[in-house]
């Protein structure tokens, strides 16, 4: 052995302090999740205190939004948010579930990964680009080719009466539908994939057709998870901002027709935040943000619980 003294013998005596600090550092990183939750709730609560003091709960049902006279009410935006999200869900959920079924049960195996990649690419398209496409491609197309037909056929309903601009609540709903298709499809697909093959095999064994196998063995088993996917899509729809702002018309009047312009919580904040000249105006916008936050957090909690219910032990990313 070498005659020199062994250098490792004199090295770092106790590493306990470094171990503890590093662990604390990592813990700090993990706890930012809770810090962020508290931070966002606090900032919105604090920023909205002027408006809350002034309007109280009437804010939620007030239908006037008048920055000039400083009368603020959230109802037009709550209405617009819900209607556009409902439209988005009605369109997106059946399409997404249908696509998920295709991907898990019917598609040839070699086609599956490329299709999944396409859907992932779709999910990556930024909101503002959808909005751009919406303004210059979708809106003219709807105004010219689709809405007149709808009004012609369904004009007896107040929903489809009134002047057609192209922009409006229905267009907002359609574009949000396009944007939530990828996430609802991905989550639905994960849910369907987690249905054990035994279920399917049992149904095949009884002589069922492919559709029957899907309906009986897969869909009923996965029902709660699929609802979770839909709820997750709803959460995403509620928060969509840019694309909606660009095609919804930005009007704070509540109209009965889907062809009329509307407004959502997120888009009014986007449009008016930098124009808010008074503290009260800004505070009212913060309160809208608080409402939006409350809605999305509740919906997302429900969605996460539903999705976790179907795969109790796995740790999967679902958002």
């Amino acid at each position, binding site marked *: *052995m*070498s005659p*020199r003294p*062994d*250098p*490792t013998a004199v090295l*770092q005596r106790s590493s*306990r302090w470094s171990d503890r600090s590093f662990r604390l550092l990592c813990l700090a990183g993990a706890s930012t999740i809770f810090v962020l939750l508290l931070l966002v709730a606090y900032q919105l609560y604090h920023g909205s205190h002027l408006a809350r003091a002034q309007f109280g709960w009437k804010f939620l049902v007030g239908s006037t939004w008048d920055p000039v006279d400083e009368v603020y009410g959230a109802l037009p935006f709550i209405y617009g948010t819900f209607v556009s999200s409902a439209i988005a869900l009605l369109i997106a959920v059946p399409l997404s579930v249908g696509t998920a079924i295709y991907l898990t049960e019917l598609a040839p195996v070699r086609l599956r990964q490329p299709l999944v990649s396409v859907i992932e690419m779709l999910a990556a398209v930024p909101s503002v680009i959808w909005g751009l496409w919406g303004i210059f491609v979708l809106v003219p197309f709807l105004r010219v080719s689709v809405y007149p037909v709808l009004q012609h056929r369904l004009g007896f309903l107040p929903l489809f009466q009134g002047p057609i601009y192209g922009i409006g609540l229905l267009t907002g709903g359609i574009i949000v539908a396009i944007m939530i298709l990828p996430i609802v499809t991905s989550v639905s697909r994960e849910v369907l994939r987690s249905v054990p093959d035994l279920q399917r095999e049992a149904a095949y064994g009884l002589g069922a057709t492919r559709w029957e196998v899907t309906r009986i063995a897969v869909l009923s088993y996965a029902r709660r998870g699929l609802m979770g996917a839909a709820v997750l899509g709803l959460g995403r729809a509620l928060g969509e901002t840019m694309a909606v702002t660009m095609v919804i018309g930005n009007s704070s009047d509540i109209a009965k027709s889907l062809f009329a312009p509307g407004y959502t919580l997120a888009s009014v904040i986007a449009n008016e935040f930098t124009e808010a000249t008074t503290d009260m105006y800004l505070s009212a916008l913060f309160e809208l943000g608080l409402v939006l936050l409350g809605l999305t957090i509740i919906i997302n909690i429900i969605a996460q619980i539903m999705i976790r219910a179907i795969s109790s032990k796995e740790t999967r990313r679902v958002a």
Partner: protein
Amino acid sequence: MSAQEPIATSRPPVPPATKSPPAAGSSSARAEGAAPEITFDIRDLSVFYGASQALQNVTLQVLTHQVTAIIGPSGCGKSTFIRTLNRMHELTPGARHTGSIRLLGEDLYGPGIDPTIVRRQVGMVFQKSNPFPTLSIAENVLVGLRLNGVRDKALLRERLEESLRMAALWDEVKDILGRPGIGLSGGQQQRLCIARALAVRPEVLLMDEPCSALDPLATAKIEELINSLRASYTVIIVTHNMQQAARVSDRTAFFYLGKLVEYDETRTIFMNPANPQTEAYVSGRFG
């Protein structure tokens, strides 16, 4: 192995027979540079994982510069035993022990003893070789030194060659030291792990079934190097292969169901065991 008269007895397992230590001077005197004769002094060691007991009242002494083999059927506690010697069993949640383990006279679990220091003195090689995937061959060997702060380049180079020679790997890799460690064959990777463990100059090298994933040729190479490690290290090897234990070790301990059944010179264990259970195991009647 050999035909012999069955030992007619219903005695309880024989307590470890510590024969007189190999002639290296009297036990009280420490010749300059010579290590004490007993490396591990283990008394009444019991290990529990939660409510279940894995080891029961094990008492034995591991002698310096010897190769000690630990044998026994699966589940007999040999892996648990060896992992208490470098405080690795603590990594399992719910693990606790009673009894004492002394390394070169010092209580391994004394208050204020840092497990990381213990592990620098007691190295370990695992069943499946595990060179770090992002490091080259040289970096793998030296990682224990480098990450503990050794920067002296000359020393590092010297240790690199020394450890790789001891692990019988130097000639095969001396020209490719920059290549990734995981690029080597299975047997070479295991020798790399041995070199990595030796580079920090531990007192003891623990080997937990080091050859079980290797082919006979690779196994033979490793057994040969174990033989040569004796001069500089104390080696404890867990193996389920009795012939291997017979080939490489000086002393053998036979464990069964968490108890140390018999511990003696290897020749005695295999040719002339005192305990009928030992005899039954080494003659292959169960395992």
